[in-house]
């Protein structure tokens, strides 16, 4: 058993008193501190990724007609995989029809579209195309499951699928991939309230 060592008295004047020299020294210290903070901020700024193209910028998906020419199933609700921005582009009214079985065909959904980011909000795996059995998005990595509109139904993810802001510019859809909209919180049910246990799945 040993004793705690004493560190001895703190040298210098009592706290509260300050000499001219002490003041200068402290100001010098403050100056150096400010410089260091500036240096740090400058470093972060320097290291900030310099993204000009690809994900992070504004990307044009195309007009509804162009999308359908590319993938005719889009009109009947199948999500269109726009790989340049890693998103599923949804024709919302048709997608709803695909799930509830009405099979509606919509060739121009107007503003009723959704650009769901394929990066799983759980740990970032790429979400595979819609699962045929369940008509849900099912992440293979850890089994998070989302409805066709990206609402979370099962698995470890903290929220629904994230999406990007979409604008219509001269009839064409443009996504701003620098603006990610966080997915709907857990427990949001606006559509497709089917129970997880009641339907077959692709992911375990």
């Amino acid at each position, binding site marked *: 058993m040993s004793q705690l060592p004493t560190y001895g008295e703190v040298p210098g004047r009592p706290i509260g008193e300050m000499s001219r020299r002490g003041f200068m020294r402290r100001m010098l210290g403050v100056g150096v501190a400010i410089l260091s903070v500036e240096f740090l901020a400058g470093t972060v700024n320097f290291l900030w990724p310099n*993204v000009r193209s690809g*994900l*992070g910028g504004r990307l044009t998906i195309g007009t509804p007609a162009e999308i359908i020419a590319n993938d005719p199933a889009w009109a009947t609700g199948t999500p269109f995989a726009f790989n340049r921005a890693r998103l599923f582009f949804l024709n919302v009214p048709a997608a709803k029809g695909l799930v509830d079985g009405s099979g509606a065909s919509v060739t121009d959904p107007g503003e009723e579209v959704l650009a769901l980011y394929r990066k799983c909000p759980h740990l*970032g*795996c790429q979400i595979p195309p819609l699962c045929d059995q369940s008509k849900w998005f099912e992440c293979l*990595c850890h089994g998070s499951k989302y409805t066709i509109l990206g609402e979370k139904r099962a698995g470890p993810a903290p929220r629904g699928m994230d999406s990007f802001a979409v604008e219509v510019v001269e009839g064409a859809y443009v996504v701003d991939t620098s603006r990610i909209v966080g997915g709907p919180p857990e427990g949001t049910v606006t559509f497709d309230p089917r129970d997880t246990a009641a339907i077959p799945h692709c992911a375990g």
Partner: protein
Amino acid sequence: MTFPGPGDLVRVVKESALWRSLFRQPYPTTSRTRALAVMNNVFLHLHPVRVKKHAVRYTYTFCLGGLSFFLFLVLTVTGVYLMFFYVPSVTRAYQDILSIENSVAFGSFVRNMHRWGAHLMVLTVFLHMIRVFYHGAYKPPREFNWVIGVVLLFSTLWLSFTGYLLPWDQIAFWAITVGSQMATYAPLLSDESSFLLLGGVLVDQGTLIRFYVMHVIAFPLIAAILMVVHFWRIRKDGGISGPV
């Protein structure tokens, strides 16, 4: 007539000006020369001249700190070897690893050594921490050396994590995707921090070059400096702590 034998050669070499300027004393055999050997050599001077008896016992330290340092050295050497053949580009990195594996002489041996050494080092650092804790060796005056140790632990993990991406294969890509996504759960600045870390929104070329720089220069340097301070403080705190 006698012919000069190997002994004479040894004598000539040992009496030469070059040899004697290199080693300022004969091979240490007495307490005095042994003490001088440690004192006069910059590398051995990491140690004091004398150490407490228990410090030499394997069952006290299990040499875990020393082994962590040894592994760090091995990783530095093998890492430099690998750097001669590796280009951190998403189109080349994987091919370079393949050629290290398949066509560079001893390439796969060096790569294996670097990889297994890295895993082992994470392990020995953890075990070292547990042994230091067991002996209460973080008690005054060694408190701050423990703090330095924690930063070293973090640096070791970070070195290992950044290196994990470099082969640019499926294991690497998805492990880093999943691992760095955990950082984005930070309550503030979550997207910004992962953007800065990955050098973009996703694991891509920006990430590879960032991880490469951190792995081959930034963090080895930081870790080495911290180790210097760590070892220095051990000496200044009177060698490793006493047996309990």
